[in-house]
């Protein structure tokens, strides 16, 4: 171990780094902008919560590093938290002496009011003290046994989530009477979540979580003693319940939620496709939006009743064509880059994405693709008179196609082709020496991955009713790549989780939209540091991460399931 002085110095410098983070989010305007969203009325808003979390993080990490007893750990937390507070205090002092707004336009009086608890420069000692207290709390979290920390964390998280989404929840729970109204009146007041409601939520979730923790082994034991048929029935029941919840989501959540969900669905479709290329086959692709565009334009051209429509087909007839066209586009796309590897592949694919967008935009092709004015009057899909007129209806198309595509992806993953992809990802030369035809396998990865994204594009065209080249910019490719990294490379549920977090959340928390890419960047860095395998890692990786002994014999587990099938 290093000397005591050295380790205390590290605690302080660690705290100052968190302090710098707090100053940063303040000066970029996040604290003030997010402050609009009140979490608990009169207690805390989103902006303050952000600062609070940074303070907690400082205390937490300081206490986790190095040994020492309880008192030492708390002291470390106190010191780190105080250092974080000192960072903000320094900003406060500076802000009251100098006019920072010339350089930092977000260093507004409102911001200083938030930071200083409304006391201006006189609030400096208070800020440092508050930092210290929060730091101690963060440190205390490391000392609690799991049985206490788990329920406590669940309670706090639930309260924050309910507070954050109170508007949405109030819409879902609207109505004059009945269960929904009763729940609403129990927790919320029309303006939001009052402290009383927050406390209720906290206590209920805390108790429920504690109960679940103590009863879980009993329940598990009970289930494992049932005959296999009952177990399968229970599992099926759980699955049906989940499906039912998803099915009523648009109706319960209303138009806005449906819109967000459709967007999540479209990104899931693209994510599944890119996951196949990058996660399974290891082929980095930064131009993935091209396939999305090809799918959208194919459906647009085939169905549009406007100027550029060529066939006036129905949506359902156009979708298979869109799939085939994007599949072929994938093959063609793969041909010139078969021999390119690594970084060069990233650059080459980046170019492809831009080429497709520029082709759609170009004046030369304007008579066919409409140039910058795009293709208008794409009709909505309909079945026997039922029109999928808006997001609330199109959600179901997205859901069904995502489920179908995920199913196909899972089958491919567990097949001979899937293994060939993974072998190629691990070591291209050896894969070839194993008798794998790299050309076939690569082209199939680009083609099938492209077709998945083409499906997304087809729905996108129907959703918007019009297609413009500028919808298909590089940022979409980057979003999709980010979401599969956050979700977990090569993991199918990870794609859904990733798009919920990176696409759904920022849409629901509108205040975030200005800081979207800042948050993406931070999320990616934090993911790489804390959970490099993603939020929901692929099965094999997860087993290793959990340090679980892999199932004893090959006659058990997922491999055996596959063998049975």
């Amino acid at each position, binding site marked *: 171990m290093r000397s005591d002085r050295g380790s205390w110095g590290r605690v302080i410098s660690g705290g100052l780094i968190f302090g710098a983070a707090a100053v940063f989010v303040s000066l970029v305007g996040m604290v003030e902008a997010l402050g609009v969203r009140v979490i608990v009325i009169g207690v805390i808003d989103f902006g303050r919560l952000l600062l609070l979390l940074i303070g907690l993080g400082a205390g937490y990490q300081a206490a986790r590093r190095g040994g020492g007893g309880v008192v030492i750990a708390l002291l470390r937390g106190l010191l780190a938290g105080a250092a974080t507070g000192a960072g903000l205090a320094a900003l406060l002092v500076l802000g009251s002496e100098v006019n920072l707004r010339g350089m930092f336009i977000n260093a507004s009086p409102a911001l200083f009011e938030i930071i200083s608890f409304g006391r201006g420069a006189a609030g400096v000692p208070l800020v440092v003290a508050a930092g210290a207290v929060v730091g101690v709390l963060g440190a205390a979290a490391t000392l609690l046994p799991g049985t206490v920390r788990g329920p406590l964390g669940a309670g706090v998280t639930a309260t924050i989530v309910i507070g954050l989404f109170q508007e949405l929840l109030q819409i879902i729970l609207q109505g004059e009477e009945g269960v929904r109204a009763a729940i609403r009146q129990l927790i919320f007041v029309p303006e939001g979540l009052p402290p009383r409601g927050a406390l209720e939520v906290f206590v209920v979730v805390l108790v429920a979580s504690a109960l679940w923790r103590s009863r879980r082994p009993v329940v598990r034991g009970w289930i494992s003693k049932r005959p296999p048929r009952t177990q399968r029935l229970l599992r099926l029941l759980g699955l049906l319940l989940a499906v039912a919840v998803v099915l009523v989501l648009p109706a319960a959540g209303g138009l806005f939620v449906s819109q967000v969900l459709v967007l999540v669905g479209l990104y899931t479709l693209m994510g599944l496709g890119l996951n196949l290329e990058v996660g399974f086959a290891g082929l980095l692709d930064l131009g993935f939006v091209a396939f999305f565009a090809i799918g959208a334009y194919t459906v647009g051209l085939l169905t549009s009743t406007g100027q550029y429509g060529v066939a006036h087909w129905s949506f359902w007839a156009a979708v298979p064509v869109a799939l085939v066209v994007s599949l072929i586009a994938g093959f063609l796309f793969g041909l010139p880059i078969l021999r390119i590897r690594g970084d060069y592949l990233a650059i080459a694919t980046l170019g492809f994405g831009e080429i497709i967008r520029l082709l759609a935009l170009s004046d030369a092709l304007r008579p066919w693709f409409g140039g910058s004015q795009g293709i208008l009057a794409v009709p909505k899909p309909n079945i026997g008179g039922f029109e999928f007129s808006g997001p609330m209806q199109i959600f179901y198309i997205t859901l069904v196609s995502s489920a179908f595509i995920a199913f196909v992806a899972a089958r*491919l993953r567990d097949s001979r082709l899937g*293994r060939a992809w*993974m072998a190629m990802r691990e*070591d291209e*030369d050896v894969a070839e*020496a*194993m008798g794998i035809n790299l050309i076939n396998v690569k082209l199939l990865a680009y083609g*099938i991955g492209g077709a998945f994204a083409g499906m997304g594009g087809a729905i996108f065209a129907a959703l918007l009713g019009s297609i413009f080249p500028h919808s298909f910019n590089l940022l979409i490719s980057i979003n999709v790549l980010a979401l599969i990294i956050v979700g977990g490379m090569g993991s199918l549920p990870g794609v859904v989780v990733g798009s919920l977090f990176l696409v759904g959340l920022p849409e629901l928390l509108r205040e975030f939209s200005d800081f979207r890419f800042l948050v993406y960047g931070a999320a990616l860095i934090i993911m790489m540091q804390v959970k490099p395998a993603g939020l929901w890692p692929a099965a094999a990786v997860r087993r290793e991460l959990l340090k679980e002994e892999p199932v004893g014999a090959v006659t058990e587990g997922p*491999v055996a399931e596959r063998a049975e*099938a």
Partner: protein
Amino acid sequence: MGILASQQLTKRFGGLIALSELDLDVAERSIHSIIGPNGAGKTTYFNCVTGFYRAEEGRTFFNGQPIDTLTPDKITQLGIARTYQNIRLFANMTCLENILVGMHPHLKSSWMGAILRTPATRQDEAQAHEEAIRLLQFVGQRGKGDYLARNLPYGEQRRLEVARALASRPKLLLLDEPTAGMNPRESMDTMAFIRRLRDELGITILLIEHNMRVVMGISEIITVLDFGQKIAEGTPDQVRNDPRVIEAYLGTRRGVAGVGA
């Protein structure tokens, strides 16, 4: 002509001649070793045979069929498999999956079959799993099918690599320093294992090895390379007493060139 025959094979890297007019003939069902100082061209020869490198001159035949212009995957499909000097498993795949990849050439299922899970695909996969489990048992790794390859201990990684090579049902197996990094006991086990491959499965073995005790103990024929040229060939006894071999390994009276080339 044996199962593998190279004639006048020459491979250059720029000005460096890695293999120079090499004639090599491997008899079917033999255990044949290639030895020589570092940089003698042993691994280069393996890379030429398996299609990683393309020789500038000369020809190589496998079962009488020329293989010089074929890609690595085609050569594997003909029945040549190999292991690597520095282990090259698919580290993030399970042991079973590694072996299943090895079986790739003789599995039939197409991608459409995989999506629809047709009866033919199912049968194909079920048989492949059975065979993979048998292979795991054969290399003494029963029950380790679900481990990620990178988490196996070193010696087991070497054996898994052999199992993966065997999965392609080779007629000729090229082993690149199979006992590198092993202690004497493990080396002896590996020797016995290599003999089993030949005796029980009838596979011809061509191996590169530095451990002289292994080479002398196991080989029927030894070819000695130095600076890309064949300097000696024969039974272990013949090679051991060949003055040119001694010179290549220990240097001449005039200097100590040789070993560290």
